[in-house]
C-alpha cells in the first residue's frame, strides 16, 4: 500500500518551537543530510563549524540519512515530491541529477568561469541537465583494478590479458579465485558491465538518447562476462551475490588475484592489522572506468536558497576538498589539487593514474529515468550472467523494455 512520508506534524512542531523562541537571536538555518558516518562525519562536522565562523548568522544543521544509495534516493524523492523546504542542501549520487533537475526539485547553480575550468569535465557533465548546472561535484569515484604484486609482475593491459593471467594463476594453484567484481543484481553490476562495454566502444544509450544496448559491442561484452563466470571460471559464481564489501573481504583475505572495486578499498586493504594482502597489492587504472561520486545541490523548495548556495560553494572550495582527499582518500573533482604533493600520499592510486582514470571516466547515461532503466537492466544482465538467458536474448529483451519505459515517460528517442 502506498505510504507517503508526510513531515507535517514534526514540521509544525518545529514552527511552533521556533515561534516560542522568537526573542532569541535568530539566524538562518541550513539543513544538510550528508554522509555522517565515522571519519567522514567528523570531517564534515569540522568543516561545517568553519563555515559557520566564516558566515556568522548562518547555522548548519547536519541530518542523518541512510548511507545506502537506494534508500537515500527513495527518501529524497519522497521529500522533494512533497515540496518539503528542508533539507536545504542535498547530497546527490552522480546519476540522480537529471532526474531531480527534470522534476524541478533542485535549483540551477552558477559557477564562476575560473572554477568551471578547474572541475573535471566528466563530473561537471554529471551535474548538468539540458545545458544548465544544477549541482557541484563533491568527490569523484572511478572503478579501478586491484592486483596482487606477489603473484604477478605487472597488471594486465586488457580484459583478454586479465583472463589469461587469471587462468594461469588458477592452473598453478597460486590463488583460489581469479577475478572478482560486483556481480549482485544492483547498480554496481551495471557499472561493471558499462566498463567492459565502453572498452569495446559500446554504450547503453547513444548521444541522442536512443537505446543501443542490444548492439554487437554490448552482446560481446556481456558474453565475455558470462563466459568468465559460467565457462572459464576465471570469475567465481559467488560474485553473482556480491556487492562491494564481500568482494573487498575476499580480496583482503588473499583469496583472489584481481578485484574490480572503487578507490575506498585501498585504505582498508593496506592496513596490516586486518588485511592479509597489505603490501602485496597495487592498483591499476581500468581501460574504461565507470564514473561515480557525489554532488551537492540545493533543494528548489528551500526557504534559504542563498545560504544553501553558500554552503555548497564552501564545501566544494579547494581548501575543503583538499582536506577530504587527505583525510578520506577521496578523489577531488578539481584538477588544480592534483599538483599538491601531499595529495599523492593520501590517494589510493598514483596521481597520474588517477588523472588518467578521471579524464576518460565513462558516465552512466544522463536521463531522468536512470534509476528505473538501471534496475531493468540489472535484471536482464543478471539473468544472462546466471545462465538463465543467452546474452543476445537478454539484451534484446532489456532494450525493448528500456524503450518502452522511456516512451511511457515521454522521453523516448526511438521513432
Amino acid at each position, binding site marked *: 500500500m502506498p505510504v507517503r512520508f508526510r513531515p507535517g506534524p514534526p514540521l509544525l512542531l518545529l514552527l511552533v518551537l521556533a515561534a516560542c523562541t522568537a526573542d532569541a537571536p535568530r539566524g538562518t538555518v541550513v539543513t544538510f543530510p550528508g554522509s555522517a558516518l565515522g571519519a567522514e562525519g567528523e570531517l564534515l562536522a569540522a568543516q561545517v563549524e568553519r563555515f559557520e565562523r566564516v558566515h556568522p548568522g548562518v547555522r548548519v544543521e547536519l541530518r542523518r540519512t541512510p548511507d545506502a544509495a537506494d534508500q537515500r534516493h527513495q527518501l529524497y524523492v519522497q521529500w522533494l515530491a512533497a515540496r518539503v523546504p528542508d533539507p536545504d542542501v542535498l547530497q546527490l549520487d552522480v546519476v540522480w541529477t537529471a532526474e531531480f533537475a527534470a522534476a524541478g526539485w533542485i535549483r540551477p547553480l552558477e559557477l564562476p568561469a575560473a572554477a568551471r575550468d578547474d572541475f573535471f569535465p566528466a563530473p561537471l557533465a554529471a551535474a548538468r541537465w539540458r545545458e544548465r548546472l544544477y549541482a557541484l561535484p563533491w568527490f569523484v569515484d572511478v572503478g579501478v583494478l586491484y592486483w596482487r604484486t606477489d603473484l604477478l609482475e605487472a597488471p594486465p593491459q586488457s580484459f583478454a590479458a586479465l583472463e589469461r593471467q587469471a587462468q594461469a594463476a588458477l592452473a598453478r594453484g597460486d590463488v583460489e579465485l581469479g577475478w572478482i567484481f560486483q556481480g*549482485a543484481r544492483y547498480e554496481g553490476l551495471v557499472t561493471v558491465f558499462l566498463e567492459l562495454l565502453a572498452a569495446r566502444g559500446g554504450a547503453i544509450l547513444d548521444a541522442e538518447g536512443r537505446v543501443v544496448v542490444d548492439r554487437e559491442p554490448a552482446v560481446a561484452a556481456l558474453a565475455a562476462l558470462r563466459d568468465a563466470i559460467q565457462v572459464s571460471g576465471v570469475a567465481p559464481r559467488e560474485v553473482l*551475490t556480491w556487492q562491494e564489501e564481500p568482494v573487498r573481504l575476499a580480496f583482503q583475505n588473499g583469496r583472489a588475484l584481481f578485484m574490480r572495486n572503487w578507490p575506498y578499498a585501498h585504505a582498508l586493504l593496506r592496513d596490516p592489522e586486518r588485511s592479509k594482502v597489505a603490501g602485496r597489492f597495487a592498483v591499476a587504472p581500468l581501460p574504461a572506468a565507470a564514473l561515480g561520486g557525489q554532488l551537492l545541490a540545493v533543494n528548489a523548495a528551500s526557504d534559504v536558497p542563498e545560504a544553501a548556495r553558500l554552503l555548497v560553494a564552501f564545501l566544494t572550495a579547494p581548501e575543503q576538498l583538499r582536506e577530504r582527499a587527505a583525510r578520506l582518500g577521496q578523489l577531488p573533482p578539481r584538477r588544480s589539487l592534483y599538483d599538491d604533493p601531499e595529495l599523492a600520499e593520501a590517494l589510493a592510486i598514483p596521481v597520474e593514474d588517477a588523472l588518467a582514470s578521471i579524464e576518460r571516466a565513462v558516465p552512466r547515461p544522463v536521463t531522468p529515468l536512470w534509476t528505473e532503466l538501471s534496475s531493468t537492466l540489472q535484471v536482464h544482465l*543478471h539473468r544472462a550472467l546466471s545462465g538463465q538467458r543467452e546474452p543476445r536474448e537478454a539484451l534484446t529483451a532489456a532494450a525493448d523494455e528500456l524503450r518502452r519505459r522511456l516512451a511511457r515517460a515521454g522521453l523516448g528517442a526511438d521513432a
Partner: protein
Amino acid sequence: MSPGARSEGRLAALLGLPVALCVLAVAVLPMLWTVWESLHRHDLRLPWLGRPRVGLANYAEALAEARFWDALAHTLFFVLASVGLEMVLGLLLALLLHRAFRGRAALRTLALLPWAIPTVVAALVWRFLFEGAPAPGGVPWLADATLAWVPVVLADVWKTTPFVALLLLAGLQSMDEALLEAARVDGATAWRSFLHVTLPLLRPALLVALVFRTLDAFRVFDLVVVLTGGGPGTATEPLALYTFGALLQELRFGYGAALSVIAFGVGFALALAYVRLVGRR
C-alpha cells in the same frame, strides 16, 4: 422486543461504533484509496506527467508483464513447497511430542525456538550458511536459478514447522483417548488407527494450520529479500517483492497500487476458499 432489549441493542451499537470506525479508518479506507490510486498513472519521479486517470491501464500492464506472472508462479510454488513440507514435518513432530517420555517439556520448548527468531535474523543465518566459503557441497546455491529455491524453502520450513506442530499438538491433546483405545481393542494396527481415527479427528486442527500457513506464505517477503533479493535475475521473486520494487523503489504508485490490489484479490480468494473448506465439516 421489549423496550429494555431495544435500548440495550442501541447501547450495543453505540459501544461498537468506535471499533467500527477504527476498522473503517485503518482497513477499509486505505484499501479503497489503493484501488483509487491504481486507476491513475502516478509516478512520483515524473511529476511532469501529472496524475491522470488511466482506467484499467495499470492492470492491463501487469497482466501483459511476464515478470508479474513469474512472480505469481513463484509465490504459488513457494506456498506449495513450503506449506506442504511444513504440514508433513509438523505432523510428525506433533505425534512425537504427543508421546509421553522423559524430557518432553524441554524438547517442546526447544522445538519452538526457530519460531521465536525474527524472520530477518533467521534468513541472515541461512544466507551465511549457504554463502559460506566454501559453500556447502561446493555449490553456489544463491547464484543458480533452481538451486536458490533450496535455501529459501528450507529456511521457511525450518522456521515455521514448529508453529504447525504446536497447532497440531493442541489438536492431538484435545482428542479422546478412548477412541484410540477402542480401535486397539478391535485389533487395528497402529497405522490403521492413525489413518482412520487420529487423522479424521485431527482434521480441524490440520485445516487451521493449513489456512494460517498458506496465507502467511502467500505474503512471503522478508525471507526472500534477505536470502536472494529475488534473484538470480528474478528467479525467486515473489509477488510481494515485485510489488515492493514497483511501489517503493521505482516509485510508480499507480502501477504498484494495481499490483497490491491484485495480490489482495488472490489472497482474499484463497482465504474465502479455505473458509468454505473449514466451514464444510
